[in-house]
């Protein structure tokens, strides 16, 4: 406890004691909280329900909290009615299940006199002077408007003044080599190439300012700038390309959001527009931008349990509310899901107002852009006709089934389409009896019965089964003849290895074939649960059955289909057409949310979806000049209004939060050291004037991020050496005054990019679907196994990794790579032996050593000294010292240049930016 609070408590006690001693008569009259009740609570209760600790989210030293109650959700004090007040019940009845203080704790129970005081106080109306409303945090610095008057007009001016006050001076200037390397890493996340370093050094020696400005401008104009800064942004917004939770399936169409962010940085999209598009890009046709909203985890495991379903939806929207407010406002609004924010002026209503702005957003994909629908329709029809034709052709090649046969001449059974051809027969009922499967209960995604005219008469049949897989949205009996393919529209029986379907066609029909499958979607994913023994029979009375096909004449599962060998081209054509049809149907999709009708948002008592309270209208935070929309407003209008409110120059948080993020990524620590928390629980700005000046600059320069970064990178701080004087390290341990340039370890992504880059292997192709660092896997629960062998496919920049949630690859995942389970506005930097082992022994690194050795020989020739110099230029942007050359030469002579390259990759200098 701090001194201040201690003093306060002592004063309170003293005053209370004085009062009780001096005016005992008063005790018989009106009892007050401060004078009579607080001393009792202080002794017995406040240790657990006071300023420092709030067990069950309940505190007794604040009127609002005490009256509202804690986790139990009911007012603890009902003024005038002690017997109805849980507080009184708990302290007075030792047998109560919530008897307080809890039995067994060291704290003494209240004595009769104390209990009586509280009883009388409540019965008298619980007089309590202190009133603390939600808005009492409004004096917090980050809620104040930006300053408008400045003492300085440059970053260096602001910093220099502070350093002068502290009596600290700056470090020596850095070498131009070091400056080139650090600016290059800061802006592009890639090492500078030796030629540009050389040119920069020449220019720098002539005109420092001009050389730095030119370098910075060049790098800001590089497309790799967007890749570097998009990766930072993706940390802040918890972006990943899989669902998380148990199944953790990949989101194959999530990448357009990543490309959108890269492009936004490269185009220097004004930050206010960047905000608007991520919240409501669908208003302006920028569909991919709203990938922001659904960038978080999503539980794909669904259940008929309504409580579970409500909780899942509440969690989805909670993720959107929390991420939206932490990203743009630097506020932890998510804390107000269950109760008013503990430190900040954010009420529960505020939380639900923002939730109502987002409640029309569902996880899922939508069209990336609208296309010409008519032309699409015509083309689709043509494809459909063609595919039907080919199918007919292929089917006719399949021999007539011979039940109970001993010779196998029909195609092997497959999870895809199985054809049962038989002599045309009149039938009213068709029965499919599965007797064995490849494992588990049989699954059939579609069952078609073809009449002699080629029509599928199963569509209008009524179907019964021996039993169905219980309560699963994907697997239902009606799906077996719904005309839709794939696991999501299939039937599964309720018995392992067995199951029966009976189709009643309504009237007798002449039929000739049956088609059935496990997964006939264009890209089938499931090959389990396929029937291996079955009987297909028909009947005209529903009692006597004639078997028309079984598995006895099917070829072995490993052999080729009958039609495949002579008709290879036919099959290939069909596949091509089907793929085309699928993409025509869908058009390019993006995982940017399905925008639906907003569902009504209730305030949930204690955040519990099973305790809905009043309906809340969409709006913003009351303490920040909230807007409010009518309940009938559309989902899009809600998001647009929210975006306008956030992206306003009058919002005191928006610009501050963004310039602080930029500062954080440039110097390792923000001016506020908690980049996504500008509330009372967060950090205090180290230099408030500088923060405000930067924020004002951002707004004035039309929210240009690049212009702000240009100011930072061309400042004198960026030209200081990274060795701090003892004095500065002692008196400014966090180097917040930037007396020297803060050295940094490369993060996982630029580290991997740099390794590939110096080997000459980095593939700089931008955009599009990403690459995988994990082996392909189609299990129900996606299993992530890190690849051990990497080819050129994986040699793109790591921002293009198809990033799974909460799974990190074995090599670079150990370098504090965020796992996107939570937002990560600030990365940890740890140094571990596993990192060392990965860089020393992984196949990836051994192959890179070989590649680098090859490059050195190609570019520097056979002379060892030249190779060493070249290596130092590539890896460290400098020339080697004589002592270093000696060491390297010896190693190369005795163990070869691959060993030398492996050593350099493992040096500290390689992984650091000084």
């Amino acid at each position, binding site marked *: 406890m701090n001194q201040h609070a201690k003093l306060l408590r002592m004063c309170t006690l003293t005053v209370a004691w004085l009062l009780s001693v001096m005016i005992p008569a008063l005790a018989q009259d009106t009892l007050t909280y401060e004078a009579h009740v607080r001393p009792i609570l202080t002794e017995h209760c406040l240790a657990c329900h006071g300023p420092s600790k709030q067990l069950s989210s309940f505190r007794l030293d604040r009127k609002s909290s005490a009256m509202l109650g804690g986790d139990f959700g009911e007012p603890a004090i009902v003024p005038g009615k002690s017997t109805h007040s849980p507080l009184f019940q708990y302290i007075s009845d030792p047998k109560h299940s919530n008897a307080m203080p809890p039995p067994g704790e060291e704290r003494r129970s209240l004595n009769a006199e104390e209990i009586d005081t509280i009883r009388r106080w409540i019965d008298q109306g619980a007089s309590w002077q202190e009133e603390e409303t939600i808005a009492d945090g409004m004096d917090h610095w980050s809620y104040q408007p930006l300053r408008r008057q400045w003492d300085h007009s440059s970053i260096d001016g602001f910093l220099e003044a502070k350093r002068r006050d502290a009596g600290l001076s700056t470090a020596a200037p850095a070498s131009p080599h070091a400056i080139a390397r650090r600016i290059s890493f800061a802006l592009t996340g890639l090492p500078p190439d030796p030629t540009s370093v050389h040119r920069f050094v020449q220019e720098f020696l002539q005109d420092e300012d001009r050389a730095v400005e030119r370098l910075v401008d060049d790098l800001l104009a590089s497309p790799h700038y967007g890749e570097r800064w998009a990766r930072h942004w993706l940390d802040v917004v918890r972006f990943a390309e899989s669902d998380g939770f148990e199944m953790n399936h990949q989101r194959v169409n999530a990448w357009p959001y990543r490309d959108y962010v890269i492009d936004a940085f490269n185009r220097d999209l004004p930050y206010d527009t960047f905000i608007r598009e991520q919240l409501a890009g669908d208003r302006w046709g920028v569909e991919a931008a709203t990938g922001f909203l659904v960038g978080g985890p999503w539980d794909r495991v669904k259940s008929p349990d309504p409580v579970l379903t409500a909780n899942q939806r509440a969690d989805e929207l909670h993720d959107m509310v929390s991420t939206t407010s932490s990203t743009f406002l630097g506020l932890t609004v998510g804390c107000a899901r269950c109760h008013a924010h503990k430190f900040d002026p954010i009420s529960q209503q505020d939380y639900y107002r923002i939730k109502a702005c987002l409640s029309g957003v569902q996880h899922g994909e939508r069209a990336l852009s609208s296309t010409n629908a008519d032309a699409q329709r015509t083309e689709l029809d043509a494809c459909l006709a063609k595919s039907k034709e080919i199918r007919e052709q292929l089917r006719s090649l399949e021999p007539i089934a011979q039940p109970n046969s001993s010779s196998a001449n029909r195609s092997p059974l497959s999870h895809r389409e199985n054809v049962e051809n038989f002599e045309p027969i009149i039938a009213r009922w068709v029965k499919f009896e599965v007797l064995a499967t490849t494992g588990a209960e049989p699954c059939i995604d579609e069952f078609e019965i073809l009449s002699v005219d080629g029509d599928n008469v199963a569509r209008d049949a009524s179907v019964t089964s021996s039993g169905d897989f219980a309560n699963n949205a994907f697997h239902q009996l009606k799906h077996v003849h719904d005309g839709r393919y794939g696991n999501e529209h299939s039937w599964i029986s309720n018995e392992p290895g067995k199951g029966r379907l009976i189709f009643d066609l309504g009237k007798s029909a002449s039929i000739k074939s049956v088609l059935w499958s496990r997964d006939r979607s264009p890209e089938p994913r499931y090959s389990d649960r396929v029937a291996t023994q079955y009987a297909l029979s028909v009947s005209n009375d529903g009692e006597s059955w004639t078997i028309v096909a079984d598995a006895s004449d099917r070829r072995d599962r490993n052999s080729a289909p009958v039609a495949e060998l002579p008709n290879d081209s036919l099959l290939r054509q069909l596949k091509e057409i089907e793929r085309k049809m699928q993409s025509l149907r869908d058009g390019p999709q993006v995982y940017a949310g399905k925008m639906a009708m907003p569902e009504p948002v209730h305030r949930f008592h204690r955040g519990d979806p099973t305790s809905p309270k009043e309906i809340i209208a969409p709006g913003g935070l009351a303490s920040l000049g909230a807007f409010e929309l009518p309940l009938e407003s559309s989902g899009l209008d809600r998001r647009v209004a929210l975006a306008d409110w956030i992206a306003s120059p009058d919002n005191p948080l928006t610009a501050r939060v963004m310039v602080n993020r930029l500062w954080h990524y440039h110097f390792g620590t923000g001016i506020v050291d908690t980049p996504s928390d500008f509330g009372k629980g967060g950090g205090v700005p180290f230099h408030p004037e500088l923060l405000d000046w930067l924020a004002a600059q951002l707004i004035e320069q039309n929210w240009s991020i690049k212009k702000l970064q240009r100011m930072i990178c061309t400042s004198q701080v960026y030209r200081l050496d990274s060795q701090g004087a003892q004095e500065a390290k002692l008196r400014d341990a966090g180097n917040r005054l930037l007396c020297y340039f803060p050295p940094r370890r490369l993060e996982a992504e630029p580290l991997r990019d740099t390794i590939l880059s110096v080997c000459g292997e980095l593939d700089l192709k931008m955009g599009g679907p990403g690459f995988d660092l994990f082996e392909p896997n189609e299990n129900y629960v996606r299993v992530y196994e890190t690849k051990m062998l990497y080819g050129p496919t994986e040699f793109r920049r790591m921002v293009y990794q198809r990033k799974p949630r909460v799974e990190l690859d074995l090599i670079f995942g150990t370098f504090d790579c965020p796992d996107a389970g*939570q937002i990560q506005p600030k990365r940890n930097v740890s140094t571990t032996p596993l990192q060392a*082992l990965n860089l020393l022994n992984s196949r990836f690194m051994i192959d890179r050593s070989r590649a680098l050795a090859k490059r050195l020989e190609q570019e520097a020739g056979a002379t060892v000294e030249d190779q060493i110099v070249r290596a130092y230029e590539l890896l460290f942007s400098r020339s080697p010292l004589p002592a270093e050359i000696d060491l390297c030469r010896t190693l190369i002579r005795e163990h070869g240049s691959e060993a030398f390259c492996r050593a350099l990759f493992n040096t500290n200098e390689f992984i650091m930016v000084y």
Partner: protein
Amino acid sequence: MHRRLFLGNSVSGLSSIALLAMLANDSARAGEAPIRPAIDPSRPYAPRSPHFPARAKRVLVIFASGAISHVDTFDYKPELVAKHDMPMPESSGLITFQGEQGNLIQPRWQFRPRGQSGKMTSDLLPRIGELADDLCFIHSMTAKSNTHGPAESQMATGFTLDGFPSMGAWVSYALGSVCEDLPAFVAIPDPRGIPQIGQRQWSSGFLPAAFQGTPFNSDRPIPHLNRPETISLDTDVATRRMVQQLNGIQQASRRDDEFLAARIASYELAARMQLAAAKLSDLGDETAETFSLYGADDTSNTNKARFAKNCILARRLLERDVRFVQLFNGSYAMGEGVGNWDGHKVIEQQYSVHGPILDQPVAGLITDMKRRGLLDDTLVAFVTEFGRMPTFQKGASGRDHNPSGFTVWLTGAGVRRGMSYGATDEFGYKAVESVTTIYDLHATILHLLGLDHERLSFYHNGIERRLTDVHGRVVRDILS
């Protein structure tokens, strides 16, 4: 001897101010001062003091993945037998995870009294049952979710949502490790595969990566532990010496560079780990008697023998003072109930496979730990994500998820033996007596390690995060 000298040298020159700057430089937060351990970046695994004297020095968590049925193993309910095949009272219309419920179904295995205490446990796990006098059962455990992913996350990390640090990460963050040449936190995945939530079981979440668990088992060693075969020992030694020398040149001009010192130290620890881990994983020095105690010699059941070797590995890690070991029985879903304890449809058939894999190896492990004295200062917790229904699912011969009441057990340091704490109702459906939460379990485990679960914290996104969120009460009744 050399080792210590080595370490001593590399640590010198590090200032503790720098450490604060790295890990805990955030400004003072509201509330009671949390305890954030001061971590030396060059020795992230260095032992750190607990908040108060600890009863346990290390922890073994045995995680039965997929939700093992308490009513078929440890929670004996005579009424469930008496009311066999009758509807559960007041359960009409009850919808659980997969849907509607059928009748109450008695345990598929006979319960018998075990040990001196006569504790009733079932024939599914007879050898573990025989240890009942040493175990402390908590029959009133409850979970927040009835889906595997979130519930397994809660048991592993305290939170149903993704992205939080696992218990082992919290413990190694708080206490470091006495063991100088192995990771502080090791996870041993089941031979059949990784658990349902994969790496989240041993993730460091938002804690520094130094505290993430290192997964390996008797089949799969630590990745990249060994020098590649293509590189000779001589070359490897020379290469690493040169790394050291080049770093040394840099250090001469950057005397008080704490990052550099930490990097040098991490390579030294890696070298020690290579030696120690190789020795650790070589079970050649175990006796035939030990192998047969664990069932590691059972050639008729490969998965059992492989899991048994993992159990031996767990004991060897604990003997070497590794702080936190997580041993998995059961893997991700490879089809319902195939790879783990998720017995929805044909529980009897599935558990007949899983029971023998678990029983002898774990019983052997506990017995072995006891006779070697390891139980005196090691806490063992056997957990699962939730329990199963006393009813069968409608139209199936298995049990659905049940987070309202299930059983976990503890043994070892600081825990009362032969005890049964809390209870479910007459059928084993809901916890009704001394209802316990996962937060309570975590609080208790931290307590036994000498840690105050309300103060051990890490600042992240505006909140002093704890393993127990804002909940948890130490279950004092089970402490010895």
